């Protein structure tokens, strides 16, 4: 069963988060790491092996891990606490909210397996982590595209005074953005491509897919811009409004349920500013997802490059939309 979202043969970097954190800790004695029995599976083991005195194994106890991270920040340390996104958000939300976010502490919560990046089914798929966390005041939320984003984000997350949540991509993580003139800037969106016909506003690993889709559509003479939005909250509203005040087709792409994530964040930004542009959401459906191989699931739920290309063509009126039930098309949410 294929458990990676990387394309075969794609250039990757190993454990970019763990290496970036270990490097940062060499310069900053305040950096500490915690994990809830998932150091090895959140790339925290790299930090643990490099700085064993500054790593704290908290056991399979996510509530205490986040509370303890808050306590460490209270005495002046800068903790990074890693577990799976499902546990950091669903299970330990009260602790993230009240111990970390309310006192506005510099605690950096790192969640692996965001959205649909595992085939283990709903117990492991954090398809609604952004929806849970976007309502939390003070919290900065980052959904990186690749290893480049992660490496550059880690020092900026540590430097940001308040709490952050990072949607972690782990293991051998694709490197994509170094082919573009790009630097990660916390809170800022970045236009990776310009285009006259379509603008893809994307976050997380979906930016990688957006770039691939843009190249494919270019071959059909469809000119596609890509705006990468690695910081989901606070949203770079100016960049989003600038991109969407247009007669281009506006499409959002996210590795997250269509409820409460990037699509609704962009849509509300436009509506609140009086911009009446229609937004096409490419996102996971509002349902518990199936188990299986990742490429199969990404195809099925509309996140694969093929599915994106098909969807954009259909929206442009080029080819009919596929009709296979439960396939390729994210359902339009009741709130859309």
């Amino acid at each position: 069963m294929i458990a990676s979202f990387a394309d075969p043969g794609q250039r990757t970097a190993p454990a970019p988060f763990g290496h970036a954190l270990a490097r940062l800790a060499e310069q900053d004695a305040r950096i500490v790491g915690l994990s809830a029995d998932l150091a090895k599976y959140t790339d925290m083991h790299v930090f643990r092996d490099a700085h064993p005195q500054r790593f704290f194994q908290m056991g399979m106890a996510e509530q205490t891990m986040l509370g303890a991270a808050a306590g460490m920040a209270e005495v002046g340390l800068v903790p990074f606490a890693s577990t799976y996104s499902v546990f950091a958000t669903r299970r330990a939300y009260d602790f993230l909210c009240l111990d970390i976010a309310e006192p506005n502490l510099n605690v950096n919560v790192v969640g692996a397996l965001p959205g649909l990046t595992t085939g283990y089914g709903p117990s492991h798929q954090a398809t609604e982590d952004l929806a849970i966390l976007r309502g939390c005041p003070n919290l900065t939320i980052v959904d990186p595209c690749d290893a480049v984003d992660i490496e550059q984000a880690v020092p900026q997350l540590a430097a940001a005074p308040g709490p952050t949540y990072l949607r972690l991509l782990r293991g051998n993580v694709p490197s994509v953005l170094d082919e573009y003139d790009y630097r990660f800037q916390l809170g800022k969106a970045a236009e990776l491509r310009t285009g006259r016909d379509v603008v893809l506003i994307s976050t997380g690993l979906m930016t990688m897919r957006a770039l691939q889709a843009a190249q494919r559509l270019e071959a059909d003479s469809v000119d596609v811009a890509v705006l990468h939005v690695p910081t989901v909250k606070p949203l770079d509203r100016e960049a989003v409004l600038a991109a969407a005040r247009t007669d281009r087709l506006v499409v959002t792409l996210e590795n997250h349920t269509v409820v409460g994530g990037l699509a609704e964040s962009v849509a509300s930004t436009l509506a609140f500013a009086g911009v009446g542009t229609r937004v096409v959401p490419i996102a996971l459906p509002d349902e518990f997802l199936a188990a299986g191989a990742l490429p199969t699931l990404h195809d099925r739920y509309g996140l694969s490059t093929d599915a994106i290309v098909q969807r954009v063509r259909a929206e442009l009126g080029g080819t009919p939309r596929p009709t296979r039930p439960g396939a390729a098309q994210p359902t339009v949410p009741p709130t859309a």
Partner: protein
Amino acid sequence: MTALHTVPARGTEDRAERIARLSAAAHRIRRHALDMGEVQGQGYIGQALGVADVLAVVYGDQLRFRPAEPEWPDRDRFLLSIGHYAIALYAALAEAGTIDAAELETYGSDGSRLPMSGMASYTPGMEISGGSLGHGLGVATGMALGLRLQGNPARVFNLLSDGELDEGSTWEAAMACAHHGLDNVTAIVDVNALQADGPTAGVLRTEPVTDKWRAFGWHALRVDGNDIGALVDAFDELRAHRGSPSVLICDTRIGHGVPMLAEREKAHFMKVAEHEWDLARQQLGEGSPA
């Protein structure tokens, strides 16, 4: 000044003098709590009267802190998990000199630094925002790990209630403290045997409390939490303990020190009629330590 602020140097005070001094402090804490309760006409006055002796001993005898410098990095931390006990802690902070006693009359009023449920961002000396129970001991765990890493000898105290033992996160944190050998952590459990919906024994049985903590790897003692002498002896014993975290389980009596409230039907949120506050203060005065 870095020494315990109100405490005569160790060894200069005999046990009887110490108990008399702390009993007087507990009396003033109760008096402050009654005055605050009257401001709102109701509140967690029963719990405040019950826990006053514990707070008098902690703030008057055990905690190392600077009343005028609540952010002093080397201070011992006192974490109030149970946000609704804020009325008692404000009284203790006034007794300690961290807040002005005159400010107590703003308790629970709009714009006051003394909200009904304790919040760190409002009140000097309030280390955490409690209220959602089961959080304090986890934060204490992280503070204690962090202080140890930094080579800071400060200690971390956490006041929990017996009702808070219902929360699974309390036991997660209890395991973590023991696993990491955090002998700089002292938990204090106020066993008043009463929860929001009624007696603890009927809501969710937590006994045998001492055995539970011991099974989790803690050095545990249990005392009458309204006996200043017993509290002093127990805290002294815990202070000397090394190698594992310590917990003092304190059996307290709701409304202690004011017979008309202590004898009243036990309630989580005690109502006191307007004309009763003077009577309550009078009864407290009659029991005043010499």
